[in-house]
């Protein structure tokens, strides 16, 4: 006669549906989350051409052969505004004619007006006034990017749109066309292309700067320190 009772050892080792499904869910989740995170990690070595992108928006243009800075920025990111007022605004004056300074969009989700501002800059670029809009956005940062009181970023799209119109008018743009361009597919696809190029280059936050294709990773903790580091790097490149 065969034994019909189950072996207690094997019986106990069977996983209950609860444990089994839990394990499967956790393993699948870990694989998916981990996989997505890892594939989004970029490489630090990127070609200067792909960084620069086709018909790049430049603040300074000394030609394709010149020492080239590419900055990925988010117009509503306070640190980017700090980089502008503490580092790159002066750089523009001091290195004009000697370097090419390319600006690419990397609007972050955390900033509700970042995309709108990027679209304003791109729409101005379509009328050949990119640098003017870029400076206007940063010179007036507290006006459109911060909530009243200045403690947090603003999400007031209406106020931003009105101010962007003003900047466009001051820059001598055709405001009607500027408004149309802001919502155009062309502008949107340019922003998407910049974002894709940034991710490919391993950009994860803003501001991220590349000098001749090499990521600039400052050690300093103040804008003055970072500015000095960037200047010495540029000087080395300009006078090898």
């Amino acid at each position: 006669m065969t034994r019909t009772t189950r072996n207690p050892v094997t019986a106990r080792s069977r996983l209950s549906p609860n444990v089994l499904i839990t394990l499967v869910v956790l393993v699948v989740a870990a694989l998916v989350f981990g996989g997505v995170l890892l594939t989004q990690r970029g490489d630090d070595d990127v070609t200067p051409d792909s960084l620069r992108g086709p018909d790049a928006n430049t603040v300074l243009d000394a030609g394709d052969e010149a020492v080239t800075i590419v900055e990925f920025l988010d117009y509503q990111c306070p640190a980017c505004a700090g980089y502008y007022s503490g580092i790159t605004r002066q750089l523009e004056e001091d290195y004009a004619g000697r370097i090419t300074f390319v600006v690419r969009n990397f609007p972050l989700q955390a900033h509700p007006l970042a995309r709108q501002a990027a679209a304003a800059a791109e729409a101005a670029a379509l009328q050949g006034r990119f640098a003017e809009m870029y400076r206007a956005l940063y010179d007036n940062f507290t006006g459109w990017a911060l909530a009243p009181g200045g403690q947090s970023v603003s999400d007031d799209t209406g106020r931003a749109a009105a101010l962007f119109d003003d900047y466009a008018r001051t820059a001598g743009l055709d405001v009607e066309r500027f408004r149309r361009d802001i919502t155009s597919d062309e502008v949107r696809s340019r922003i998407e292309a910049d974002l894709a190029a940034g991710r490919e280059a391993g950009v994860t936050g803003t501001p991220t700067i590349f000098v001749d294709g090499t990521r600039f990773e400052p050690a300093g903790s103040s804008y003055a320190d970072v500015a000095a580091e960037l200047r010495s790097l540029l000087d080395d490149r300009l006078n090898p």
Partner: protein
Amino acid sequence: MTFVDGRHPTRRLGLTYLLGGTLGLVAAVALTLEKLATLADPDHVPSCSLNPVISCGTVMASPQASAFGFPNPLLGIAGFAVVSTVGVVLLAGARLPRWFQWGLQAGTTFGAGFVHWLIGASLYDIHALCPYCLAVWIAVVPLFVLTTVETLRRHDRTRRAAAALARVDVALVVAWYVVIAALVLQAFWDYWITLVH
């Protein structure tokens, strides 16, 4: 007096209530104390405001943090104290009447609904996370799931469905956590990715 063994559904429910209720209560008390400290000193930086993303201060200052005109953690202190007490009562071996079970079902359903509304607000409106709130999110899911299974078990027509659900209740809770984690990951993608780079 009857002995209640470790796998008995009532004991399982009692333990969940005690642990979930205590976790929620501790978080609600912590949030209340931070709120009081902020009221006393507007410059107070809460212990859980670590950076722009993980920031109780931002969350506590939002209109959703006082959904009923007073700070939400006050509701939590009352609600979770009841939940942990019921947990002790269940562990003591009490059999609760059906109408009481319906009360628990109403309470945990409201709690789960409210918390998920707050999750939505935190991820898509306030754009910040608060660790004490996360503890409440974690507490509410098993409370709701196990209470629902127990309510179903109390009625003849749904007893079989309850038995089937009871076999996968932990998996259900874990899957629920995974969905919330995925939403958190997606909503703050720009932030998380800076941590792994």
